[in-house]
């Protein structure tokens, strides 16, 4: 009989305390974002050779392990970027569609009103009211173009601001990961580095993947290497690269570019994540749809102005341009005077090709169209079904009615929204799966911890009993032995 038993009990009590502490810490952090559950790892203490054979000397607390699965992290990080990119882009396109006001408040209904006003005008070409209503509707259509263009431009500007915020966040994250983690952790004794710091680093890396789609590898020297499309974003000891969104050459679409830490020329990379979603929305989607809108505005402007020039105003002259401006952003009425609408047929001089001069008029005034001549007004109304040259086409190129061109744009945008939504849905499914798998592995299960609490409490109690038992035995040996005959 020796005192070993006391120490065996002590080691058990210490192990039980470590177990209780870890379980309490797990429970306390059950809802802490990014927390990785911990587990105390025990091993049996070495034994000594008693005369009867080896006898164990209790338990050793080996380690408080952080139950992190690098494979699940990698799976999460590779899926979260695509999901975020699709989500951001889909939100942008949905906003664009909402701002276009279709189908109730957008161009499609305003254009319909315009054709109706023109037809009424052709039925009663001399009436001021019908002329006024044509100009009003034309003004409304121009205003709707301008309104949609302005709303889209504003959305683009806002989103570009968001893109810059994200860029700033990405570069800040890289700097933080370099200065506060890679530099500090390089070759440090990991036993002295708390698991909390690693959780914090993993959270920053998660965020970086969500923003850019970057992948992470963990190095032997405790540092991390972050790569995007094969280009290093962060390496030790080189340091963080700088991420920019800029065109590769003048006139190119801005792309995500990585400037390596030592300089040496930026590389264009295929990113994903919020950064890519925003970049694609601002620099690819918006300009494309905006060009289409400009094209529509120009088509309408050309058709209306040409038609007005083909007719005669009250004094016999050619009609002036009704709309002016450069694209959808600033299309507007030239004049708000109802006299500028050319309702009548133009009478041309056969020789000069200019509006003919009245041979009977002493002052050499032009031949004027009769008051109720609505020939050109009718041609205006017929623009509804006229085949107009598509934007960017040369004379003789592809044509379609204005309504077809407009509905192609509306339906095209709707289709883009639709497909971006289903991409988001699919990417979200994958990302949710990865998130759940990780949460299931890294998260705290209250029930498990409860069981642990009970388990360690009991272990503690049992070990205390061990000590009491040894103590009582010793008591018998020390105090009760050898008192025979006292």
């Amino acid at each position: 009989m020796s005192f070993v038993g006391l120490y065996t009990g002590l080691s058990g009590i210490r192990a039980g305390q470590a177990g209780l502490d870890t379980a309490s810490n797990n429970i306390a952090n059950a809802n802490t974002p990014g927390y990785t559950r911990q587990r105390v790892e025990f091993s049996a203490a070495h034994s000594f050779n008693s005369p009867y054979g080896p006898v164990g000397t209790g338990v050793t607390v080996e380690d408080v392990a952080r139950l992190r699965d690098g494979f699940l992290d990698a799976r999460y990080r590779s899926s979260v970027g695509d999901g975020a990119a699709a989500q951001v882009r889909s939100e942008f396109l949905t906003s664009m569609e909402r701002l276009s006001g279709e189908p109730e408040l957008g161009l499609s209904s305003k254009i319909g009103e315009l054709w109706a006003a023109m037809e009424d005008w052709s039925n009663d070409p001399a009436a001021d009211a019908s002329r006024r209503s044509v100009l009003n509707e034309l003004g409304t259509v121009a205003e709707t173009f301008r309104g949609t263009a302005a709303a889209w431009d504003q959305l683009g500007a806002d989103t570009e601001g968001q893109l810059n915020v994200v860029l700033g966040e990405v570069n800040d994250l890289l700097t933080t990961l370099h200065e506060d983690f890679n530099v500090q952790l390089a070759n440090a004794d990991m036993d002295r580095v708390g698991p909390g710091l690693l959780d914090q680093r993993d959270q920053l890396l998660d965020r970086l993947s969500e923003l850019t789609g970057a992948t992470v590898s963990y190095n032997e020297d405790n540092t991390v290497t972050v790569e995007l499309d094969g280009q290093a974003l962060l390496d030790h000891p080189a340091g963080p690269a700088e991420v920019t969104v800029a065109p590769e050459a003048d006139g190119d679409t801005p792309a995500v570019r990585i400037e390596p830490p030592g300089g040496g020329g930026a590389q264009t990379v295929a990113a994903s994540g919020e950064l890519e979603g925003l970049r694609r929305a601002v620099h690819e989607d918006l300009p494309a749809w905006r060009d289409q809108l400009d094209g529509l505005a120009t088509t309408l402007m050309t058709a209306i102005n040409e038609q007005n020039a083909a007719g005669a105003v009250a004094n016999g002259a050619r009609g002036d341009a009704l709309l002016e401006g450069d694209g959808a952003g600033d299309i507007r009425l030239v004049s708000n005077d109802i006299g500028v609408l050319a309702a009548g047929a133009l009478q041309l001089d056969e020789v000069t090709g200019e509006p003919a001069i009245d041979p009977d008029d002493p002052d050499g005034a032009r031949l004027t169209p009769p008051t109720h001549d609505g020939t050109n007004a009718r041609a205006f109304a017929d623009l509804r079904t006229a085949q107009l040259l598509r934007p960017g086409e040369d004379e003789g190129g592809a044509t379609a009615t204005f309504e077809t061109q407009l509905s192609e744009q509306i339906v095209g945008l709707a289709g883009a929204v639709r497909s971006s939504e289903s991409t988001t849905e699919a990417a979200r499914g994958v990302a949710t799966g990865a998130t759940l798998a990780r949460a299931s592995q890294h998260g705290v299960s209250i029930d498990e911890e409860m069981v642990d609490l009970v388990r360690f409490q009991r272990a503690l109690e049992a070990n205390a009993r061990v000590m009491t038992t040894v103590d009582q035995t010793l008591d018998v040996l020390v105090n009760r032995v050898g008192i025979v005959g006292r």
Partner: protein
Amino acid sequence: MRVTSEVLVTRSLDRLNTRLKAYERSQSELATGKKILKPSDDPGGANRSMSVRAAMRARNQELRNINDAMGWLNNADSQLQSAMSRTQRARDLTVDGATLKDPGAQRAIATELRAIADELVGIANTTHIGRPLFGGYSDGDAVTPAVDADGDPVLDDDGRPVLAFDPPADQADQVLRRISDTEQIRINTTAAEWLGADDDAGDLVSFLRGLADDIEAGDQEAATAGLTVLDRAADRIGANLADIGSATNRVESAKARADDSLFALRTELSNIEDVDVAEGIMELQIQEVGYQATLQALSKALPPSLGSFLR
């Protein structure tokens, strides 16, 4: 798979969100009565609904054009009918003028012929909603005494005032109305056309005035010769009436077509856009029950843990 509290929360929120989204969608569909609230809800349907709407707008406009055209045509028809009966009366009078030798009767015939001529001028200058009915594109009277550059009346060889037509005989102004995407029909005739401004014997009004003078002067041969001119005039008015009548027929059948097509388009639009209310209510009920069930399940599943049962 370990079910940790994070898993429970993440998954519950995800399901709740999905349920709520579906519930909200059926609610707004039912509240607005529309399946397509924005084009991306159904791009193909939105495309069809836009073209159907455009077609409906066009048909509605055609119906307006047709109503307007009917007004013109009916007015022109009744005016030409009375011009026709006046012309026939003039012919009857001329037959009398060619036979009666009593100067009193001849004078009475002449007076009535002049009255008929004036009446025809009146008919030719009728207006329809502020516009001259037989004046083509012009404003003002279709038939006026001609004046020269100095404003003096122009007289013919017999010293009678010459009439000016606006528009002139060689310019048949076409007042058109669109009655379908491809059809435009003429709804007018000009005074020069139905009064025969380019007739060898002169226009009907001037001719009647001349005839009245001849009959008053007892020139029965001129009266007899005038009968063929009057027959020609009646034929001309008849032809114009027939034009107006056939235009009326086309407009009426176009109206029937536009009405039919509008009805079909409305049905089609409703099929594309509108929610079947019974189905919508069922759907909403299902979503509501689903949402409530999810909530129930959550409230049952989330709170208890082993902690509640251990002492």
